Structures are given as C-alpha cells and as structure tokens.
C-alpha cells in the first residue's frame, strides 16, 4: 500500500515538474541529434538549449571543425563520378567476361562501402546534427533501394544532391529534386514510362523495349511522398498522373553531361488531355509534371501527412492531434518551409511534455549511432557498423519498398532485437568491434574498453538512477559499460 502511494506520488510530481536544464539538454541531444558525445551535455547547457535549437535549425551557422572538414573532403574526393561507374559496370561482351564480372562485383562492394562511410561519418561526427537527423527522416520518406540495378551507383548522389541540400528547406524543392533524380526515376520506373500513341510507342514495342505507361512512381508520389494513402485520390488519378509524367526520364549513358541527370523526352510524352484530381490538364509537356508537383506540395492533405510524420518522428509514436493540427497550419502558412515547421515543433509543449521524453524506442540506426557516439570512439572502419545494422534488420540504403523504414516501436521492439542490441553493446563496450583500423590492414590494434564512469557522465540523466545503481553495484568492471549501453534506458530516447 505504502509502495503504491509512493509511486502515485512520484508520478504526480513528475507530470507537473519542470524539466531541469540538464534534462532539457539531454532531450534535444537525443531527438535533434543522434545522442550525446562526451562533453555534449555540458556544452549545450553552457550555450543554452534554445540557442542550441536555433543553431541546429540554421546549420550553415555552425562552423565545421577543421579536422572533420578535412576528413569529409578526403572522402568526397574519393567519390567516383556516376558516369564513370556506369561505364565500368556496363556488361562487356568481349571474352574474359568472368573476370570482368568479378571486377564489377568488387566495384559495387567498394561503392556501397564508400557510400556508407560518407553517410556514417557525417551522422556520427557532424556538429550539424539536426541536418543529419533530417537526412535520415527524408531518406526514408523518399526511400530508394540501393540494391535495385543502377541505384547501386546512384544512391550516394541522390542523398547528396536531392535530399541533403533541402533537408531543412522547402518541401516543394525536396519533392522536385527527388522526383527528377535518376535514382528515383529508376527505382520507381518512371524513366521507362512511355505514353500510349506517342511516336516511339510502336517502334519500342516492336523492339521488345519499354513501350507503355508505368504507373509505379505516379502512385507512390501521391500515396507516400505527398497526400498519404487516405489522401482521396483514385486509381484513375494514378493513371492520369502517370500520363502527365511520361517523358520524365534520364539516359544512363549521358549522366554527367547535365548537372542533375534529368531529361524530358517529349517523344514519349502523352500529349492528350488529362483529368487529374479534379483538374483539367491540357497538353503542356514537361510542365504537366511540374504542375502536378506544385498541386501536391501545396495541398493541405500533404501538409497534414508530413506534419503527422514529423510529429511521430520527433515526439511520439501516436502524435497528439493538436500538435499535428498546429504543424499543419504552420506548413500551410509558410508554404512548406520545413525549418519553420520544425521550429513550431520544438517550441510546442507536446515536444517538452515529460510523458514524451525518453519514450521513443530507438530504431536500430539511432541505437547504433548513439552508442558509438557515446563511447567517443573514432571510427575508421565502418564495416562492423554496417554489419550490425543489417543484423538488426535495418541495413543502410537497404529497404526494399518505397515506404522506407518505420521509426515506431511496433516495428522494432521485439525480443530478438533486445538480445541483438545487448550483444552489440557488449562487443562495443569491451573493445571487440574493430572500429579503429583501415579495412584490409590486417590484425586490428586492440580497441580500448569503455569506462563506465565516463560513459555515465556522457549520458547524464538519460540513464536512470536505478540503472546506475545496478550497474555500479553488481557488475564486474569489464561489463559495466556494456550494461549501460545495453540497458533499457539506452534503448529509448
């Protein structure tokens, strides 16, 4: 009875308590960043939480440390231009095909590793953390699957040129950049869509090549990217939009000759009239697709869909309806200015409501990144991270279908996940993941074991007093840091 009263008392106090400055700092580092690195909590507290948020919303205002910038430049310099990759991957009909095939397989592996390295170095070490968080958010929103054919060599360019520059920009720009990027045109097949009755329709059909309408992108752009699945469109709207988008394509051989690779091919564009979402669309060539994206980006239905997803990602698996309303209004008032919508979100009392703090179950990506960040390890070999993400069901660039990875607990919270996370935490904390050697450099230097005291001070109040007590009183030295990273507290943020 007494125990029960005490619990009730604590709950009551908690619900009304103001968060301490450290709690607020931990909360923004958990949600606007991939968790604290050593010293981060103190530095956010000293600059002030609201100034930290302002800076994160204006990433260009944050200076990049020289060492980080050099590292990134060095990596970027190694990026092989897309057109060269496509050239290298083109099947060779000459003899010695087997050797060429092996070369190609090796090249694809190198490209995948390079892409992953670029993504992970930025996500782990960029001081512009919110931008990295938004890259994760938008990449899943506009997902492409790297293992589909040409996308193997397009995905890095897609993230760098279609997602990252607009992650905190205007939604319409983001929508347009993804729509026109070869990675998306290829992934959702629009590049091969040909209007019926066009000049090329019959000759292509005869040659057994692409000869008709493909509605794949037209459907997903409404269902996933803009209006949402209950957005009120019909099968007819899907088909009509596919017709409007005929001719939006790219030519693999010509990549590199134009900045973005996008081409409009008037010869396969369906010039007939269309009836789409209540609009009568007369023939306007490429402009029809732009018009469609304008309409979709400005729709209140889209505003609500995006607002819901943002609130779900940043606040709660079941976002408070009042918050979604507020963000929807902000989205419409600012014509889809993502920074302004996020500012409203971070200002909202829902974001700061204690019941929403520390309550999201981390995705594998968030879990692994936050663990590595907390250790302060300097990662030069990302293979163990790539492997762990795959094992946990979230390989980088590896989600097959266009809806992207979920960020809700129902997708990730299960018994096997707990076991695997604990195994990863143990390997990481006891120095068994070779994160510190260049690939193929032979036996790794031993990784340092992580000191539990340092780790606990890095993580601050995100690790509860009870967990701290258990860790410090019961574990052997070698296991303490593993227990912190494998604790229930650290699975959530």
């Amino acid at each position, binding site marked *: 009875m007494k125990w029960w009263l005490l619990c009730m008392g604590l709950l009551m106090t908690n619900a009304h308590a103001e968060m301490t400055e450290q709690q607020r700092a931990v909360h923004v580092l958990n949600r606007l960043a991939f968790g604290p690195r050593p010293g981060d909590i103190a530095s956010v507290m000293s600059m002030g939480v609201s100034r930290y948020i302002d800076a994160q919303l204006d990433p260009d205002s944050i200076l990049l440390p020289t060492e980080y910038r050099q590292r990134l430049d060095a990596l970027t310099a190694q990026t092989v231009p897309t057109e060269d990759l496509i050239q290298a991957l083109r099947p060779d009909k000459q003899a010695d095909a087997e050797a060429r095939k092996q070369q190609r397989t090796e090249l694809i592996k190198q490209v995948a590793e390079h892409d992953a390295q670029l993504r992970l170095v930025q996500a782990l070490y960029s001081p512009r953390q919110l931008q990295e968080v938004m890259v994760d958010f938008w990449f899943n929103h506009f997902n492409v699957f790297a293992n589909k054919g040409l996308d193997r060599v397009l995905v890095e360019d897609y993230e760098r040129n279609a997602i990252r520059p607009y992650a905190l920009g205007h939604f319409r720009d983001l929508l347009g950049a993804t729509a026109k990027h070869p990675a998306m045109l290829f992934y959702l097949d629009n590049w091969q869509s040909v209007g019926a009755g066009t000049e090329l329709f019959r000759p292509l059909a005869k040659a057994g090549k692409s000869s*008709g309408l493909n509605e794949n992108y037209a459907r997903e752009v409404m269902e996933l990217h803009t209006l949402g699945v209950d957005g009120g469109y019909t099968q007819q709207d899907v088909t009509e939009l596919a017709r409007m988008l005929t001719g939006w394509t790219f030519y693999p051989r010509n990549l590199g000759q134009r900045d973005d690779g996008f081409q409009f091919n008037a010869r396969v564009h369906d010039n007939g009239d269309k009836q789409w979402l209540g609009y009568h669309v007369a023939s306007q060539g490429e402009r029809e697709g732009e018009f469609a994206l304008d309409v979709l980006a400005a729709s209140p239905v889209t505003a609500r869909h995006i607002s819901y997803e943002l609130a779900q990602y940043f606040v709660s698996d079941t976002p408070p309806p009042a918050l979604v309303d507020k963000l929807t209004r902000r989205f419409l008032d600012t014509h889809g200015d993502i920074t302004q919508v996020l500012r409203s979100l971070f200002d909202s009392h829902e974001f700061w409501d204690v019941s929403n703090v520390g309550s999201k179950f981390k995705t594998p990506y968030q879990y692994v990144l936050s663990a590595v960040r907390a250790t302060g390890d300097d990662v030069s070999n990302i293979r163990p991270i790539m492997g762990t993400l795959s094992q946990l069901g979230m390989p980088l660039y590896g989600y097959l279908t266009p809806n992207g990875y979920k960020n809700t607990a*129902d997708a990730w919270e299960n018994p*096997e996940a*707990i076991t695997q996370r604990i195994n990863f935490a143990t390997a990481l904390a006891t120095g068994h993941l070779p994160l510190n050697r260049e690939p193929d450099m032979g036996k790794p230097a031993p990784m340092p074991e992580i000191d539990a005291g340092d780790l606990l001070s890095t993580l601050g109040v995100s690790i509860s007093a009870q967990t701290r007590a258990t860790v410090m009183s019961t574990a*052997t030295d070698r296991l303490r840091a*593993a227990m912190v990273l494998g604790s229930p507290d650290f699975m959530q943020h």
Partner: protein
Amino acid sequence: MQRREFLAGLLGMGMVAVGSSAWALRTPVPTQRKLIVIMLRGAVDGLSVVVPYADNNYYQLRDSIAIPRPNIAEGVWDLDGYFGLHPALSALQPLWQQKKLAFVHASGSPDPTRSHFDAQDYMESGTPGRKSTADGWMNRLLGVLPGATTPTRGMSLGTVMPRIFMGSAPVGNMAAGAGALRQTALDRPQVNSAFAQLYQGNSKLAQLYQESQDTRQEVMGAMDKEMTAANGGAAMPNGFPQDAARLAKLMRNDSNVQLVFMDLGGWDTHINQGAAQGQLANHLQPLGQGLANLAQGLGDLFDDTTIVVMSEFGRTAKQNGNNGTDHGHGNVMWLLGGRVNGGHVAGDWQGLDDAHLHEQRDLPVTTDFRAVLSQVAERHLQLSDAQLNKVFPDMGQINSHLQLIV
C-alpha cells in the same frame, strides 16, 4: 458443424491411439497441429505461378511474359488439364502428386486497394478496410488456441516483428540466416546474469528481455545437438531453402512451436518480369525448393502441418509496357500439408475475358483470403466458431464451397 468436426477429430485421434503409446492419447490434439504462414511481400504474379494455360486470353494478354503450354520447351507443368505450374517450381511436383499441395485461385482481399502497404496491413490484421485494428490475426489466433502457451509457441523468422504477429500474446522471434544460431555474448553466464539483473523490475522492456531469453534457451536447446552433429558448428549459407530446412529442424526438436510466420520480398515485378526464366523465376525457384525442404525436413510432423503461402494482391492480367505487370487484385493462395486436400486448384475461376476482369484489368477476388484461412483454423487447428470470430472479427458469413482440409 463444429460438433461434427470435433467428433471427427476424436475419431481420428482414437485410431492413432490404438497403435501408439498411451502418452499420445493424453496429448491434446490441437497443440500438435501446426500452421506456417509465408507471406510474399510485393505482390507475386499469381497468373505466372498457377498458369491458366487453357485460357487463350492469357496468351493474348501477355505476349512476352506468358509461360508456354505444357509439353513444350519451358512450358508449365500440367496440374489438371487447365492450369499449369511454373517450371521454376518443379520441386513441388511430388507434393502435388501426393495430393499434399492445393491452390486457391482468384483469391485475395475484398478490399480494392492497390497499395502494397495497405493491402499487406489488411492481410496481416485480418480486417480488410479497417485501419484501426491494432493487432495481427496470428497473434489473436495464438490467444485463442487451447493449451498452455510457451515462449516458442508463436515464432516469427526475422529480426523485425511483423504486423501479423503484433498483439498481446507473446511471440518469439529468431533471426533468419545462419547467424541466428551463433554463440553470442548473452550466451555467456556472466553476461547473462548481469543483464538479467539490469532488466529486472518494471521496465516495459523487461518482459521482452525475459521472452528473448526464454526463446533463445528453447531454440538453442532444440537446435544444439543436431547443428553440431550435422555441420560441425559451421555457418550454413543464407537463403530461403536453408532457412526452411532450419525451421523444420527447430519444429521437429521443439514440439512447442505451433504457429510460424516468415516473409520473403522481391515480387514487385513492374519491369522485365521474365517468363519461364528471368526475374520472377529466379525468385520462385528457391521458394519452391525451400517449401520442398520444409515438407521433407518436417518428416512425420508434416502430416500435422499446414503451410499457407499468400501475397497482398495479384498483378494486372495484361502485361504492361515494360515487360512487367502492375498492381492488380486477385491472386493465388498455396496450401501444403499432410491434411491438405491436395491435387486440385480450388476457387471460383471465371476466366480472363474482359467481362470477368476486375475493373477490366485484374483477376477478380472470388474467394476471400479469410475464407481460406478460417477453414484452416477451423478444420486443421480445430477452432470453434466463437474462437474463429475473435481471429477474424469482421468476416461475417462467407459461404464457400472450399474443401481444403481433409
């Protein structure tokens, strides 16, 4: 109806008991009956799986991706004089001949959505058209099964808990691939006891931790001897045929495993689907081989097992402009098992002429997927009407003439 089924079950049991030990007599029948559901995510082209080769429209609708008629090069394997099986599924021919494989054509969800995500959601929640259902039908099924619940009674293969198994009944999961059975840090007693202590208490994750440990213990216990003996502890290659073989071993050695779910992706063939060979065939081949491995690996247990293969919807009857097919409606469901009334293609087949196509483009759904599943639940798992209503609450009365279970 229920009563008759029940009596038939008792009679069957009695006959078994005559020649077997008294232990068998005491074991309740329902817990021995197994159900494995395999979901093909991305909408497999059912018209290429069970091909209506006797329907001329099929060849007119698909000039470059149709599978040829039987007895010619790369042709289908004749099933019944009208339908033929994709040649990449040849591993399943013996099961058809033994009448342990049946199909239900033109089946699927009554909801008309062509969204993968909605359609999968409905097929897994078991409530087409209703988004608010929080749990999955296999979890509800787990909840109503008679007998004691154990950590491995419901098992999902894969690291992500699927919608179909979400809900209040605890479900175990095991990673697919060889890595699932490697020794891990948590298998070391010292690590294990440290984390056990950490997860004690009221954390909502504590229960998950406990479940994960119980499952692990049971699975490793069941697999240990056989793994070491057969493979010297070496990792086996990944892929469905191997996963299926592993699953069979697990089920053979752990009699508690009763409901199993796994999913396979890669069926969304909008472009260059291929015909007897090609993209789709390359996916069907390991699927067929894996199912054959599963049937063989289960041994006697196969007699008590029903395997259902399903996909969220079918694909357009007519091929598209890219030698592929787009999102359609009706599809084919597959049933395998010792008690399956096999060797026939069930369902209400109406042909592929314009008049019978759904919205002039897709195979219609003439059999609700829940009619198939509820017959399996009723006749194979011996659920009562009341239990069945809990698993498929919105179904109402579906009159079907299906005879899918012996």
